[in-house]
């Protein structure tokens, strides 16, 4: 049992960086930091969601020291379908969340906080499911609760451009266009800020990066 896990770990150690390189090559992604510096402090990167590649590409593009301390949150029902996806999810160290059955004592937010502890950062997509329209969708409340339970986390907006053209919804084969990831200045939940106000502010923070 232990040896099986050992080989799994070894395979992961090889395929992880390889998959990261492939994801970077295919998406031709360039990373821009605007009013924000790369840092290994605990952060929640929240981004717009237009493609299945979003989580993988953003994670792959982060500098290595940050990447090994960052986990993308993704849907269990998608990433546990079939051995290839499962292997990819493990290689990218994805934090899988049940969208279907949410248990009372293990809410997604609680699980995320438990998984990251005092060390790791998160990548979340507050729009929930992938967005097919031009406009950003409404943000779900998870980001608010993350900020409320852990006010020390930096909430960092990320805008991902062109990835919906690289791999649109329902497609399997990517087209290698050039994409761009913009990371903006962190925001925090203000004391006593109502949920909807905060979510709108977070959404605007992502939207603003589109024009920069």
């Amino acid at each position, binding site marked *: 049992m232990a040896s099986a896990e050992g080989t799994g770990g070894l395979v992961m150690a090889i395929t992880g960086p390889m998959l990261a390189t492939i994801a970077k090559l295919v998406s*031709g992604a*360039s*990373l*821009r930091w605007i009013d924000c510096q790369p840092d290994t402090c605990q952060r929640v990167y929240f981004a717009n969601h237009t493609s299945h590649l979003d989580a993988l590409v953003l994670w792959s593009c982060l500098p290595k020291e940050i990447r090994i301390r960052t986990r993308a949150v993704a849907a269990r029902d998608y990433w546990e379908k079939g051995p290839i996806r499962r292997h990819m999810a493990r290689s990218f160290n994805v934090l899988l969340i049940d969208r279907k059955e949410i248990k009372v004592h293990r809410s997604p937010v609680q699980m995320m906080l438990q998984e990251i502890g005092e060390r790791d950062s998160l990548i979340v997509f507050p729009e929930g499911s992938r967005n097919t329209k031009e406009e950003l969708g409404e943000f779900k409340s998870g980001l608010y609760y993350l900020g409320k339970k852990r006010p020390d986390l930096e909430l960092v907006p990320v805008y991902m451009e*062109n990835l919906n*053209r690289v791999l*649109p919804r329902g*497609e399997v*084969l990517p*087209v*290698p*266009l*050039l*994409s*761009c990831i913009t990371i903006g200045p962190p925001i925090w939940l203000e004391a006593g800020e109502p949920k909807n106000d905060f979510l709108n502010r977070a959404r605007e923070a992502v939207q603003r990066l589109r024009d920069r």
Partner: protein
Amino acid sequence: MARAILLAQSSNGPHHVHTQTYWLLGVVLGLLVVAYVAGRLLKRYPDHSLNPALIERFNHRIRVWWLMCAILVAAFLMGRVPTIILFGCLSFWSLREFITMTPTRRGDHRALFWIFFVFTPAQYALVALGRGAYESLFGVPHRDFYSLYSVAIPVYALLFIPMRTAMAGDPRRFLERSAKIQAGLFICVYYLSYAPALLNLELTTSAGALWGDPGSHVQNAGLLFYFILIVQLGDMFQQVWSRLAGRRVIAPRIHASRTWEGLLGGVTSTTLVGALLWWATPFQFWQAGCMAMVVAVAGFGGGMVMSAIKRDRGVEDYGTLVQGHPGILDRIDSLCFAAPLFYHLTRYFFSQVY
């Protein structure tokens, strides 16, 4: 391959073509060294009559040329197929830039996949197969797959792209979308593939005498190098002349700094330099001048077309399209448009056509 190297070494023909090719390379390297030293000196002892930004741009351009020269020479030294693969990669990357800038819809996805991963590699594979593969397949020597790679994209890709897009079921702006994808495939892949196709020709002088060693690709690589050099010089001369003497802008809304004076001066200078380098080619003095003139005019046309596309899309450069990426398409637009002309003129007047 081994045979080709042996032939290249043993060849001691009357033309001494390899020597000429290496001389051309030597001249270019010498000029680059001179330009490099001049740029350094200008930077260190700033002359106040010159704009420092201009010197910086000059130095940057010299750096780009060093890089291009190094990559080209490395590919040439490795042989015919690596050179063709290098051009294939250039095509792939510039197509990437072109399509990124062009708005496409969800229904174009599958057609795009085909042009990136089937038509582009297929075009270069057909060029790379060369004379050897043709002979072993059909038993006819001296021919390459020209009859196929010259029509693969204009006929078959052009049929296929609208078909695949139609099957995706989105009729909105159908003709426009197909045309954009086709234009990208033509400019970035089809036109450019004629440059490495020069390596497949059996070069002769205009009198019909074989030029160089038919078993070697070195003299063809030299001609390809000459062609790229002329295109780059044409670009540079037009810019310099526009800056020095430019008055009448040709089309201000397309390109603000391309002038009639720049075009005239640039084409004349390029013709002159191209003719003076005749000894490195199978051309005579006046023939080399004509070739250089045609290349300069076609390169100018390419630059105009590409900047019209950029203005239409509202982007400055393909390089600024996505931050941090070098704009390959900015560098090779004139090359793309001049390559088919140079190839066909060489094919019909300076090579054995069977």
